[in-house]
C-alpha cells in the first residue's frame, strides 16, 4: 500500500515498537539494554539472556537525554518490566554520552559490527552501515569484533538525510522511494554523487526536462550506491557482506549496491536500524558476565 498520497511529511518513516511474545522476562537471568541515540533515529533494545525481548525505534528529537528516555519508555511499554530491573545499559551512537541511565558508552562502530553479527550471522565480514547522517564501512571477524573501519560523517551524500531531502523534493513517501526507483525501464545516469545540495539542484533540472519521478529517484539511488561503494572499496570487501541502518530498508539503494559489488547482501529478519542498539545490549550482557567473573 502506498503512503504517498496520504502523507504530507514525506520524509517521516514509520516508528515502531515490539515485544517478543515467547519470552517472560521474569524467568530471565541477565536483562541488558542497548540504546542507540543517532542523529536522526533512536533505538532502545532490551535483551533477556542475549535474546531480543522488546524494542522501539523512533525519531531523535533535538534533546538526546529525552530521546533516550522516550525510546526506553516506549520499548518497555506494557511489558511490566521496569528500568530498575535492567542489570546493565550501554549507550551508543552520536548521542551516546547523553543516555542518562547508561552505565557505559561504547562506540557505534563496535556496536554495529556486533549487531550485524547477531542479525546476519557469524559469516559476516564486511558491514556497511548507512545511517541518518553518516556512513560507515566496517570489517569484522566471526565474533563480530571490528578489524577495520572507515566512517564518513562530514557529508550527507550516502546518508538517510540525503534520502529524506529527495523524498521531500519529489513528494514521494520515504517508504516508497526504493520500490519506485526500480520502476524504470533503463538505468539513467546517476546524479552528481559528491554533494546532496548539488544533487538536489540537478534533480530539479531533470524534473523540468520532463523526467518522471521514478527516473529521478533511480538516478539518485544510483549516485548514493556509487558513493558508498567507493567508501567500502577503500577498506576492501570480504564476504559475507551485509548492510545495516535505515537505508538497508531502501531496496532501490540496496539493489544498486549489490549490482556494483556483484555481491548479494542477505535480507535481514530483524529491522536493520536496530543493529547498533542490539550490539550495545550484547556488550551490556558481556560486561555483566565480566563483572561476575571478577567478583
Amino acid at each position, binding site marked *: 500500500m502506498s503512503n504517498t498520497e496520504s502523507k504530507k511529511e514525506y520524509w517521516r518513516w514509520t516508528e515502531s515498537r515490539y515485544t517478543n511474545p515467547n519470552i517472560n522476562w521474569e524467568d530471565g537471568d541477565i536483562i541488558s539494554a542497548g540504546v542507540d541515540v543517532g542523529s536522526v533515529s533512536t533505538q532502545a533494545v532490551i535483551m533477556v539472556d542475549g535474546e531480543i525481548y522488546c524494542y522501539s525505534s523512533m525519531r531523535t528529537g533535538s534533546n538526546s537525554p529525552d530521546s533516550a528516555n522516550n525510546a526506553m519508555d516506549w520499548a518497555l511499554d506494557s511489558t511490566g518490566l521496569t528500568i530498575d530491573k535492567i542489570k546493565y545499559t550501554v549507550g551508543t551512537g552520536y548521542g551516546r554520552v547523553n543516555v542518562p541511565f547508561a552505565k*557505559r558508552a*561504547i*562506540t557505534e*562502530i*563496535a556496536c554495529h559490527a556486533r549487531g550485524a553479527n547477531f542479525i546476519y550471522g557469524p559469516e559476516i565480514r564486511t558491514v556497511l552501515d548507512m545511517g541518518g547522517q553518516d556512513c560507515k564501512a566496517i*570489517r569484522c571477524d566471526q565474533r563480530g*569484533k*571490528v*578489524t*577495520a*573501519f*572507515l*566512517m*564518513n*560523517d*562530514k*557529508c550527507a551524500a550516502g546518508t538517510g538525510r540525503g534520502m529524506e531531502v529527495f523524498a521531500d523534493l519529489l513528494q514521494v513517501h520515504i517508504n516508497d522511494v526504493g520500490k519506485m526507483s526500480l520502476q524504470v525501464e533503463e538505468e539513467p545516469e546517476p546524479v552528481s554523487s*559528491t*554533494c546532496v545540495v548539488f544533487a538536489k539542484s540537478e534533480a530539479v533540472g531533470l524534473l523540468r526536462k520532463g523526467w518522471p519521478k521514478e527516473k529521478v529517484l533511480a538516478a539518485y539511488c544510483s549516485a548514493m550506491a556509487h558513493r558508498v561503494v567507493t*567508501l567500502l572499496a*577503500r*577498506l576492501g570487501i570480504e564476504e559475507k557482506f551485509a548492510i545495516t541502518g535505515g537505508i538497508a530498508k531502501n531496496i532501490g539503494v540496496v539493489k544498486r549496491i549489490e549490482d556494483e559489488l556483484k555481491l548479494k547482501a542477505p535480507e535481514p529478519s530483524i529491522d536493520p536500524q536496530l543493529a547498533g542498539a542490539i550490539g550495545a545490549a550484547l*556488550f551490556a550482557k*558481556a*560486561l555483566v558476565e*565480566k563483572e561476575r567473573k571478577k567478583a
Partner: protein
Amino acid sequence: MTKANYGYKDGSGEYFITIDTDLCNSCEKCVEACPAGVLEIAEDELDPLGDETIAIVSEEHRKKVKYSCAPCKPGGESKELPCVLICESKALKHSW
C-alpha cells in the same frame, strides 16, 4: 592487523589517518611529536571488553584532519611526517 581510519571524504578529496591498533604499543611518542595535538592515547574503543590503550586521533580533530595536519605538509606534500617517522611499530599512516 586492526585498522582504525580517522578522517573524512568531501568535495576536495579523501583525508584519512590510519592507525593499526594491533601494532600500536601505546608508547605515546606520536602524541608528543605532533605539533597540533591531533593524537592522544585512549582506551581502544574497538575492543570494549578489553583493557588496552592505543593512540587515536582525538574526536576534536577527526572532521578536520586536512586542516589540523596542514602545518606538517607544506605545499601539500606529505614528506617526513613527524608522527609517521617516530612510530616504533610503523602503525601510523596518512592517506594524503
